[in-house]
């Protein structure tokens, strides 16, 4: 899947923030924005939906805690009961620390691997750099051109008012830039 995009490069975060607002007002679809550091308020300006990663984290944590409680109950009270200090087989307090650790472990790993899967990251993947300076001193905004009503000249003229440094048309291929 390939698509035509317009890259606009800025040298200040405020220019990028204002440009994002103006671009969205015109109904142009924003593919993504690349910044050297986390720009406060950018996700709000871009109208990004809240990440669902927190739900993955919560569900993994619950699975870890409840699954480990069930497993401990099975081992300690059903499969192979061992008398520890004269306590009853199904002693909940002794199960809690391990269940807690399992919840933390699964929630942590679950979130990280879910993030990797969603962003299609894996070891050995070659870096997909949109602009050589996007991790240095430039703020890059990527806009979707595939809409028939997209008028490159007028968009570029509008971006001029936000001190755009350069604009560039490009065809993105593959899923890495989505």
């Amino acid at each position, binding site marked *: 899947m390939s698509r035509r995009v317009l890259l606009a490069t800025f040298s200040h975060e405020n220019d990028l923030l204002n440009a994002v607002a103006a671009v969205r007002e015109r109904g142009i679809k924003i593919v993504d924005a690349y910044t050297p550091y986390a720009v406060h*308020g950018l996700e709000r300006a871009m109208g990004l939906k*809240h990440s669902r990663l927190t739900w993955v984290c*919560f569900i993994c944590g619950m699975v870890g805690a409840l699954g480990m409680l069930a497993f401990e109950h099975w081992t300690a009270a059903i499969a192979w009961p061992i008398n520890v*200090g*004269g306590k009853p087989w199904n002693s909940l*307090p*002794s199960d*809690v*620390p391990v269940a807690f650790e399992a919840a933390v472990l699964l929630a942590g790993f679950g979130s990280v691997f879910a993030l990797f899967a969603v962003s299609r990251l894996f070891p050995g993947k070659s870096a997909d750099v949109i602009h050589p300076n996007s991790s240095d001193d430039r703020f890059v905004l990527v806009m979707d051109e595939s809409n028939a009503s997209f008028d490159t000249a007028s968009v570029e003229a509008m971006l001029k008012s936000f001190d755009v440094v350069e604009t560039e048309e490009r065809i993105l291929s593959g899923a890495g830039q989505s």
Partner: protein
Amino acid sequence: MNAQNPSLRSLRKKALLLGSVGAILLGVSAFIWPDRAWANMLASAFFLVTIGLGGAVFLALANVCGAGWHVAFRRIPEALTGLLPIGGLLLLATLGAQLSRFTWHHHGTGDPGTFWFKEMWLDSRFFLARAFLFILIWILFSRILVRNSIRQDETGNGDRRINAGISVVFLAIFAVTFSLAGIDWIMALEPMWFSTMWGVYQFSGLMMATLACIVLGSVFLRSAGPMQGIFRDDHLHDLGKLLLGFSCFWMYIWFSQYMLIWYSNIPEETFYFEKRMNTPWLPITIGNLVLNWIIPFFVLLPRPSKRNQGIMVKIAVVVLLGRWVDLSVMIFPVVVGEMPLWGVPEIAAIALLFGLGSLLFLRSFTLGNCVPRNDPFLAESMHYHT
């Protein structure tokens, strides 16, 4: 300018009325149920002192971390420290009124568990002098921290390194004195029992109650006017995160104390939980966990609820109620007995606590400007995104 705000003034009157009614009712019930009235008084006074102290701890932590996010609402923890002097006086009066509850060697030496250090430590004069000294140190440090902040409003000078240095010293002293204070004033009600988790358990409760009070105070002052446009949802969000974190910390500490005692199963340790779980206190002990962890944890977990002022206020109330129940479970089974009682003295104590606490908080808040207007981090704090 603050002092003229009509809604604050009318609230101060209401708080004064509520506190006075509570004080009178508690005074009357002291003649009918002396034990219950005293237990309620101890819980209320300790509650007041910990919130006041917690305000100073919050300021000190922020100073040490070089934090800037809290500057916009810094006057609220500063106003909380105004609870310390009166709360401390009440606490000293309460301790002094029935000192025999703490001094255990009046049974005569040679009791089981007696040894010279314990007798020296719980000697009445040393006990009272220590309480006085602890409260004095806390008042002194909170005064210095607040004074430096107020002075900055006029002069614009405020060396963050000096404040951070004072705060480091204060936090170190606080860690020791507050652990000992918790042991002295509450754990020593049962002098034969001991727990090395006690100091940190008290600290977790202090932080939770303080954060809940900061949330309540900020939200109230935002709707009443003075903090409008200053206290933002982003500040509320971060306070919510801290509250969630300290709620989990409280549960962690509570369970650590419980599990170690449950596991080793030694009679001189287990009788603490025996008294609170094999008696009609069991539902209250479980309610304590529900109020302090289960409800805050599941409600505060999603992001939108931490940014919602209605939800945050309700959770702050639940947490403060939980703190009261937590203190009740520590104190009442020893002083009052096996049966959890609920009636006039308890309601009177809560009315006194809420009325006096709000009155002192509003009084110290209205003394100065409602924002540290010359703090260099004020702009950053007011444009803060979380």
